[in-house]
């Protein structure tokens, strides 16, 4: 007990030890050593690539060889602003993103409310995992599953057929349904977290002051949870804007993603310029979300 084991482990000697001592005395160097690799990777590979993409938007392609020509021009931006097709596609995509966001919020709210305020702790934890599992299940499989379900001989039309109805799955309504499905968990989780943070005493106070349950909901709960809905909408909005697989599988109309995907092989500068549209919309959206204090509820 007295000598513990101090004698058995003498301080190590050698370059490793000296380096360690040096790092211990110089926390700045230690910090730089930690940040060097991730910083290089993200800075060079990722941010660097984004800068290359941004620059590509100002270049042009040789009309015969489709090779990139590194000459500064604003023609690409002029083209996407002036060509009606590009404008229509952008408007259609942004409208879709908004519609998907609303549908996700409507579907997510009852479940999130049930999880946060009614379910027992055990059920609540089970439900959180139950919402997270489909989120991680393969994105492509989910989109493909819907293609099968919505097809003429699929499950949906099998249900509708006896009623004399038919649903055209290959449509924007079908795509709206699929996007809503794909991003729904991203909406459930922030709303659940937001509702869970509302102290029960506030709702009781509202009831004590004569607020009926509907009134309490609209005057107390909803305003308090609104930033969380905005937080969830960042995901539903951003993910819809950039998607090109689901539109290819489900819809026949063009969306921002499908246009970029179609153009990039032959006309990279146009694709790059068009990619600035979702980036600009998302950054604008993030700025608004920040004003609404949404970041605190993610």
């Amino acid at each position, binding site marked *: 007990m007295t000598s513990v084991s101090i004698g058995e*482990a003498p*301080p190590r000697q050698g370059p*490793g030890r000296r380096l360690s001592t040096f790092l*211990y005395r110089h*926390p700045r160097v230690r*910090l730089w050593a*930690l*940040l060097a*690799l*991730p910083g290089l*990777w*993200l800075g060079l590979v*990722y*941010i660097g*690539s*984004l800068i*290359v*993409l941004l620059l590509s938007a100002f270049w042009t392609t040789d009309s015969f060889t489709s090779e990139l020509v590194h000459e500064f021009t604003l023609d690409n931006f002029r083209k996407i602003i002036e060509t009606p097709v590009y404008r229509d596609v952008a408007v259609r995509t942004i409208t879709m993103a908004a519609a998907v966001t609303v549908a996700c919020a409507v579907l997510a*709210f*009852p*479940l999130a409310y*049930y999880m946060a*305020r*009614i379910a027992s702790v055990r059920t609540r934890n089970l*439900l959180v995992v139950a*919402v*997270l*599992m*489909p*989120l*991680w*299940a*393969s*994105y*492509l*499989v989910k989109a*493909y*599953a819907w*293609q*099968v*379900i919505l097809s003429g*001989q699929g499950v949906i039309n*099998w249900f509708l057929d006896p009623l004399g109805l038919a649903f055209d799955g290959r449509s924007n309504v079908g795509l709206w349904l699929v996007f809503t*499905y794909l991003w729904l968990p*991203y909406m459930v989780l*922030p709303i659940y977290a937001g509702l869970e943070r509302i102290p029960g005493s506030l*709702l*009781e106070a509202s009831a004590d002051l004569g607020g009926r*349950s509907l009134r*309490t909901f609209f005057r107390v709960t909803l305003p308090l949870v609104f930033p969380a809905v905005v*937080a*969830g909408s960042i995901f539903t909005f*951003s993910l819809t804007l*950039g998607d090109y697989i689901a539109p290819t599988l489900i819809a026949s109309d063009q969306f921002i993603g499908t246009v970029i*995907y179609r153009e*990039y092989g032959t006309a*990279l500068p146009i694709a*790059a310029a068009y990619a600035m549209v*979702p980036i600009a919309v998302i950054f604008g959206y993030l700025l608004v979300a920040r004003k609404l204090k949404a970041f605190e509820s*993610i």
Partner: protein
Amino acid sequence: MTEPLVTRVLLRLGSAFTLGFLYFPLVVIGLYAFNGQVVQRWPIEEWSTRWFSVAFDNEGVRTALKNSVIVGLVATAIALVLGTLASMAIARFRFFGREVVTFAIILPIALPGIITGLALQATIKDVLGPWGVVFGLGTIVIGHATFCVVVVYNNVLARLRRTAGSLDEASADLGADSWQTFWFVMLPQMRTALLAGGLLAFALSFDEIIVTIFTSGAQQTLPIWMYSTLFRPSELPIVNVVALFVVVVSIVPVYFAQRLAGAEGITPTRTKQAASDA
């Protein structure tokens, strides 16, 4: 309970509907894997497991699976190293530009995949191409590692926040050098967080298609094989089997990650919290 009975019944129904909606397509595609016919008609008239052996023997599936596993393992390894280093810097230091670093880590999954994909494709073709870099498994790994860093980072950062820095100092006081402290004190504390982050990074990489299409060249991963085969109706039964397999392979790691790190560890929406509290 302030909610009246009617509200509670309605909430229960609404929740059941939303949950059913979340699992419905996964169940349907699971059933189609056992469809004996080539035609994708509902209801399934002939049940069979014969497509499982057909899928297993398919050369394209085997190559794609092998590629997916290789890419997943290498990307996960890179993400583990980069994510751990970054989380140690963010958790234990206050420095100028800290917010920029956290922002750069979450950006790859905050921006739409098509942007990341297009940016990498432009860079590889236009900037790295003249240096002899060609599209292949290597470039797929570069893309995957970039967006996998964030899941490792999140898990390890959450763990480091919960464990006190005083343990590291105690270790130093007792005569350990930085390497010994890392190996005997920090690593045992981070072990399950690293495992959870690694499992999630693998699941993320195994499923990824949007960025992969832009960086893959002629190589196929399993999702790319699936996507290119979707347009060949005669091979759809094999796609169904592969789809079921992919769902199981991506959900199982998530289940274990959740057991190791709690539901918080597998919640992607937490990523922005890391940015906001920087």
